[in-house]
């Protein structure tokens, strides 16, 4: 809560806008739970519905608990033509499935729209890092490298 209070104070000083506040909150809390949103709503006197409306709109603002690493595989045409489905198959071998979080709460896998890496497909993002030109060994090394 201390960190969250600090963020709210920063928002009150107009250091950043509401979207940035929610983004920073995700960094601190991992996701935007009902309690977190309620707390922000009461502190800033912003209707809870408005906050939830924003949180549910953006794909980078999760409202449910996610794994430590959120994998976002690009499912847009350019990556699709260059084997994004195979990337999903390989991830499946690790027990990571689309729309699900692994039991050890380490990985969550989501499909995302274009991440602007059409020149080096297929691509995926893990948290905020982008991995391009994926193939079997590369994915293997990436997943094994994440502790």
């Amino acid at each position, binding site marked *: 809560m201390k960190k969250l209070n600090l963020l709210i104070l920063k928002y009150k000083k107009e250091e950043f806008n509401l979207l940035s506040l929610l983004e920073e909150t995700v960094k601190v809390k991992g996701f935007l739970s009902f309690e977190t949103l309620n707390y922000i709503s009461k502190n800033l006197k912003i209707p809870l519905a408005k906050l939830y409306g*924003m949180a549910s709109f953006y794909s980078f603002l999760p409202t449910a608990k996610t794994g430590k690493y959120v994998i976002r595989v690009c499912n847009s045409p*350019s990556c699709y033509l260059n084997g994004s489905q195979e990337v999903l198959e390989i991830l499946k071998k690790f027990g990571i499935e689309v729309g699900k979080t692994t039991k050890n709460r380490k990985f969550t896998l989501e499909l995302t729209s*274009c991440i602007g890496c059409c*020149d080096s497909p297929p691509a995926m993002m893990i948290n905020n890092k982008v991995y391009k030109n994926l193939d079997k060994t590369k994915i293997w090394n990436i997943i094994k490298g994440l502790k």
Partner: protein
Amino acid sequence: MQILRKSGWAGFEKTLKMDRKEVIKKVKESGLNGRSGCNFPTGLKWELMGKGVRYLICNANEGEPGTFKDKFIMEKNPSLLIEGIAIASYAMGIHKTFIYLRGEYSYLKPKLERVIKQSEEYLKKINLKININLGAGSYLCGEETAIMESIEGKRPVVRQKPPYPPEVGLYGKSTCVNNVETLANVPLIFLGGWNNKLELYSLSGDLKKPGVHEVEGGIKLKQIVSLAKPKTEPKIIYFGASGGCLPYKKFENLSVGYKSISEQGCMLNGRGLIICGKNREIVELSKIFTEFFLQENCGYCTPCREGNFRIWELLKKIGCRKGRKSDLNLLQKLAYYISDTSYCALGTSSTNHLKCALKYFKGEFLKLCK
């Protein structure tokens, strides 16, 4: 490449010696048009700005699938962009600028911040503050009024137009929204030797050498595609997700430009070309593009939200060879209803790809139907 030229703030220094109106006049005369998709004359846009507090928004929320030219500029030549923002702000008398950077490009934020810090002495001369606002993964936020809603801290639903942004924009004030590529071209106008016709094209798909290429507008489709070395003979060219598609063989000699492409019922959105090889099936591709709109529509209006879902269902059915010929009529009707009745540009352009597919590749759809 012209866009990679270093200006080193020489263009900005030149404009400071000029009157504001002169700067706008010069931009107007140069013939610079918006490079995001609408092709609106940039000088005219600047001239339309109102009085009082004004804002400039640099639209770096490049979400169109197959488009990555703005990322290319921000990665390779960010100082040119910042200089362009400074010149635009000076010309319009703006003291606060927002760069709306998409969340997927968050790794570019430190780089841009560093460049802004290094340029502080120039920005101080015109008392300009540049803020970087990070998006959170929304395609819709590429629309100018949706960006404003997002910066204001609201759910980014597109605003009704008119009033247009120069009258009522961000926080109710007069606002100008320009694309990254447009702004990056501004300093080059004042440096001299700038070629108006050189534009960036993003090429991706079944290619050996995908990437950003700078070519003169009006070049033939065949020539652009050959730059990226297709793996197999190209069959279909998609102009991003919302731009529609054309059969390559029939149109390989078409000169690529806003006018010539829109005459064929397509849109040259952000100049992103997705090239699909000869083995690709149109029904499968249409399904992938529809999936994109399912993911990115905001849910505000019914035709776009429900219609695209029904299209996806029908395409899935046809793909499994369970479709009937009457389903094709339904598809066509839905495609036109959605584009006629949706609330914003995302909805109205969301079925362009399907309309074109049914126009040029109906035979392939029929083959799969009973």
